[in-house]
């Protein structure tokens, strides 16, 4: 499983076209993985943000805040999957990503 394209996209930042691309990559990874849940959650997170921002004025500071809050836990999750961390560790990091997203977009 090649996570490099997703990692590279993540470093490009949070903007609509990139979020949809990351969502597409995560769906493809989920389909080829025996443990699709983390990728499925990441896909929903990326597409959820993109849908929320679509056709709205996205203030630079707001985009930065979302990126700061989510990028670190997303990187940790990708690292964990890549380094074959335990299921429990991966699930904990998946929950962290989901919690951050739900907190940021709770309304």
């Amino acid at each position, binding site marked *: 499983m090649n996570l490099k394209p997703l990692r590279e996209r993540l470093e490009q930042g*949070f903007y609509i*076209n990139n979020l949809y691309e990351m969502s597409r990559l995560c769906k493809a990874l989920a389909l080829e993985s025996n443990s699709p849940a983390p990728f499925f959650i990441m896909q929903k997170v990326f597409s959820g943000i993109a849908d929320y921002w679509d056709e709205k*004025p*996205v*203030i*630079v500071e707001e*985009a930065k805040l979302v990126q700061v809050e989510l990028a670190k836990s997303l990187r940790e999750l990708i690292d964990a999957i890549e380094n074959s961390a335990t299921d429990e560790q991966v699930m904990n990091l998946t929950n962290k990503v989901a919690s951050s997203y739900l907190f940021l977009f709770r309304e």
Partner: protein
Amino acid sequence: MIISYSLELKVITERTLRILELAHETGALLHGEFTLSSGKKSDHYFEGKRLTLHPEGAYLIGKEVLDRLEGTGIDAVGGLVMGAFPIITAVAVESFQEGRAIPTFIVREQPKEHGTRRKIEGHLKKGSKVAIVDDVITTGGSVLKAIKAVEEEGCKVEKVIVIVDRNEGGSELLKNEGYNFEAIINLPPSGEASISESKTVKGETRAGILHK
């Protein structure tokens, strides 16, 4: 907003001035620091539907586009969903009221999945001369999709009109490809809003440039 007169005189109409004012009043044109879909940063944001779905906005845009189509000899006017939808409707209504009814059409993003599988809806005859409209042009993707769709039907694009040109490469691309392009409002990268040079078919004229 301050109206200041520049040495670079451009002829603008009361109507185009009002369109720019209304763009601010309706919240269609915002100033600040925004992240665009492409990731580029911009100091302005334009949400066309806030202007084109506003009663006065629709009326003014319909009249403005219609005037800019005068003398082109086009058979129909259309564009890509969603941006073009309210514009072409306004043009259709206004053109009928003025006794020079212009048929309109809309281009789907994707062909209809069921039934007719049509990509173009409305009144477009093969081989006709058309104008393409949109609310905003950035890189030109939406406008080019509409152009490609009508050219596949053997139509000739005589003119492209947008309400706002973000000056992010789209208009240059179209001009380089030989299309006759006009924008009602130009948003230079500096963030200074200006009315583009416009015809003075109707209404009083005023010379100047509008700064934010």
